[in-house]
């Protein structure tokens, strides 16, 4: 049975797992719950593999799209046919292949890890139910063939994120973080919806193939113009900023670390936050027609990358550093898309999924080993004690810093190369990106040195450091292997490899951009130069971290004291949260309380309703005097009534007579 025909199986299996665990799992033993969860995700991964195989070998990469049933249909009464149709349509193309494999593959590994990590936690069944629910929505998101269904998945992953961040809901900071994530996401979703409306208004449909077919032949909008496509793209990007934590809507991601570590790994590293990048890449036809929007994307991505990296330099919580690192790396992906290198952006998405998930899972292993401690300044000297965790995390750190031949080097380098060649301030973008790469290398190695090297800064008698079980270590090893070899599918010709990845995605994004005006040899030269520069930057970062944290352990404190202003600003995250609270949240709460509640709800609405009742009572109070029980006044009323009726009936005749009387 061809799986491609029944693509719905892939999202459905996790949904079933979620439902079974959610409804029945409360009384089951852990093993039963995890077998349902792992089984559904694992099967989903296998089906996805099979679907990909069919796509590649049977259909030879031709776009596959199937409509399963009509969801929203608005018939066009005037012209026949449908005025609007959004159906449950799934599609498979090269971009989907990448996304679905990343989601199901990495997701499955994280499920395995969670069985070990969450083994002693309460609410085990609830966790896996939510995790499977998330997988369902994410798969809907990547398999959708129209914007509406994508938005269903979009909202759904936001919901699952809320549920999972607030998993320890009895802890106030956790439930607050969940709410913050949902609300900030919502702001982005508002932009996304407006973008969808605008697209529908312009193209009359929201199906991907239809919209892109109609947009393709249109002329590109000139720089600086704010035409329809530009506005729509900017609105979609606003949604992407919310979901993928870019400026100014990134504030939920660091707080989201309140959730369990596997959640951070899956949702806030590998999958949900990449949904924004996916949307931008999917809509590349629209974006390439709107150079202004692309420039905005690139600038925002670049700025976010730098901004988040600076904050990550001074954080003490191991997960916070990784959170800001995620924001920063997402910035790189948007930078790549913004300069037109959509393939590079997606490539970085894939490699980032590998090494960032690994980093989070490994940090979870460290926290588990330290009995719950998350402050790096209270760790140290763990490298000998938790060997597997140490070596896998080292692989991930080398990957993210961009050392060849690991995965991160190729993807980051590809993005920086494309940024350098961009016509609109490419050199500036490249410079900032390079500095950010240096900072990335620095703070990641700072993390490694503080956590694993040096003398232990904790009480060795009270904390018994132990290695994690194999259920947790297994996925770490697999992800480490992927982090090492994952980049080799896209080794550019420069290094003696074929850029298989770009070739694979070529049917969607077009073939790789050649350097403007440069011959092939010159292009190779440029690429080589830039690559070397990047490696040098990474080495500098490593060296500085080494010097500060291993050779001169007292130096960081001295630096912090001497640069006190800068240090406090950075460690307080530029006071952005406080700024938002003062400028936006508190005024809104004040307005809601004093205006909307007291004035509108109590005064106007209740007042109107009560006023009607009071009016009826008042009128009744006056009118009751007609019912006096006094027959003679009744007689008068009878005459009055007769007079009124006669006057009304004979009004045309009476009017002139009245004039005569006057």
């Amino acid at each position: 049975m061809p799986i491609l025909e029944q693509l719905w199986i892939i999202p459905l299996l996790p949904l079933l797992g979620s439902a079974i665990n959610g409804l029945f799992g409360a009384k089951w033993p852990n093993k039963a719950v995890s077998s349902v969860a792992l089984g559904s995700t694992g099967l989903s991964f296998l089906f996805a593999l099979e679907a990909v195989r069919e796509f590649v070998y049977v259909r030879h990469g031709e776009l596959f799209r199937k409509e399963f049933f009509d969801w929203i249909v608005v018939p066009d009464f005037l012209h026949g046919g449908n005025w609007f149709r959004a159906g449950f349509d799934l599609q498979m193309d090269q971009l989907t292949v990448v996304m679905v494999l990343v989601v199901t593959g990495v997701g499955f590994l994280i499920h395995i890890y969670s069985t070990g990590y969450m083994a002693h936690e309460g609410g085990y069944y609830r966790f896996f139910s939510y995790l499977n629910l998330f997988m369902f929505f994410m798969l809907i998101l990547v398999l959708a063939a129209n914007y509406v269904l994508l938005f269903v998945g979009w909202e759904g992953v936001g919901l699952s994120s809320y549920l999972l961040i607030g998993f320890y809901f009895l802890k106030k900071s956790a439930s607050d973080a969940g709410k913050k994530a949902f609300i900030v996401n919502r702001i982005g979703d508002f932009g996304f919806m407006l973008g969808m409306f605008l697209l529908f208004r312009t193209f009359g449909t929201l199906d991907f193939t239809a919209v892109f077919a109609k947009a393709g032949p249109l002329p590109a909008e000139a720089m600086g113009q704010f035409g329809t496509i530009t506005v729509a793209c900017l609105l979609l990007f606003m949604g992407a900023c919310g979901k993928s934590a870019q400026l100014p809507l990134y504030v939920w991601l660091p707080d989201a670390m309140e959730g369990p570590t596997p959640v951070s790994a899956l949702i806030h590293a590998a999958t949900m936050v990449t949904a924004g990048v996916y949307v931008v890449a999917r809509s590349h036809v629209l974006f390439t027609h709107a150079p202004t929007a692309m420039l905005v994307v690139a600038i925002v991505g670049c700025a976010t990358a730098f901004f988040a990296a600076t904050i990550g330099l001074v954080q003490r919580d191991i997960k916070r550093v990784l959170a800001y690192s995620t924001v920063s790396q997402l910035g790189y992906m948007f930078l790549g898309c913004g300069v037109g290198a959509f393939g590079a952006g997606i490539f970085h998405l894939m490699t980032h999924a590998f090494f960032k998930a690994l980093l989070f899972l490994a940090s979870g292993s460290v926290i588990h080993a330290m009995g719950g401690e998350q402050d790096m300044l209270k760790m140290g000297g763990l490298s000998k004690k938790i060997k597997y965790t140490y070596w896998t995390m080292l692989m991930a750190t080398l990957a993210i810093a961009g050392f060849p031949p690991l995965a991160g080097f190729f993807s980051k380098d590809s993005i920086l190369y494309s940024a350098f060649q961009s016509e609109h301030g490419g050199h500036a973008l490249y410079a900032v990106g390079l500095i950010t790469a240096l900072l990335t290398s620095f703070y990641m190695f700072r993390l490694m040195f503080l956590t694993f090297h040096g003398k232990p800064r904790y009480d060795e008698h009270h904390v018994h450091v132990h290695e994690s079980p194999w259920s947790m270590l297994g996925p770490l090893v697999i992800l480490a292997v992927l982090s090492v070899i994952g980049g080799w599918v896209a080794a550019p010709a420069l290094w003696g490899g074929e850029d298989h990845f770009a070739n694979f995605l070529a049917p969607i994004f077009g073939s790789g951009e050649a350097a403007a005006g440069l011959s092939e040899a010159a292009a190779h030269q440029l690429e080589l130069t830039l690559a070397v520069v990047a490696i040098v930057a990474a080495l500098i970062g490593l060296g500085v971290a080494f010097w500060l944290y291993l050779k001169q352990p007292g130096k960081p404190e001295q630096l912090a004291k001497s640069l006190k202003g800068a240090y406090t600003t950075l460690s307080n995250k530029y006071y952005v949260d406080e700024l938002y609270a003062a400028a936006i949240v508190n005024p809104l709460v004040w307005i809601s309380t004093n205006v909307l509640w007291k004035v509108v709800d109590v005064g106007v609405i209740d007042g109107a309703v009560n006023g009607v009742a009071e009016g009826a009572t008042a009128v009744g109070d006056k009118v009751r005097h007609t019912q006096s029980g006094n027959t003679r006044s009744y007689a008068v009323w009878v005459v009055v009534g007769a007079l009124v009726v006669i006057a009304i009936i004979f009004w045309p005749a009476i009017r002139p007579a009245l004039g005569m009387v006057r």
Partner: protein
Amino acid sequence: MSAPLIIFFVLATLAVLGAASLIFQKHPIHSALSLIVVMVALAGLYLLMGAEFVAAAQIIVYGGAIMVLFVFVIMLLNAGEEERTNLSKLAKIAGWPLALALTGVLAAAMIRASPAVANPARPGALSDTATLSKLLFTDFVYPFELTSFLVLVAILGAMVLAQREQK
């Protein structure tokens, strides 16, 4: 000043005086007798308009039956002169203006209802009792039967109402 006009004014004055007497007399029996005067005057006016059967019916039924009934009841109940009690406040303030307004409105309405009203009526169009009875039993047979049923109900009602209480 033609003869019909003079007769009209005489009868009209008689009617108005009778109505005024009805309003201002203290004893109900005097009011009843004044009402009989009004009815006779109206019967005369009907004759003047050529409605002979209606005039006869007015005298016989109204004057001869209904007013007799009134007089009997007055005598039966030994109704005396009216006492002086306080007027309902509303009636005191609104009574006279209302009455005048009512009269004026009605008059204006009726006069202005149709231009034909102002013209004198055509002479000589006497109405015929035979025609009247033919109309009554053909076009108006349904209301006719209904009113006879109504009279039956009224008789029964009056009998029930005026029974002595069963001890």
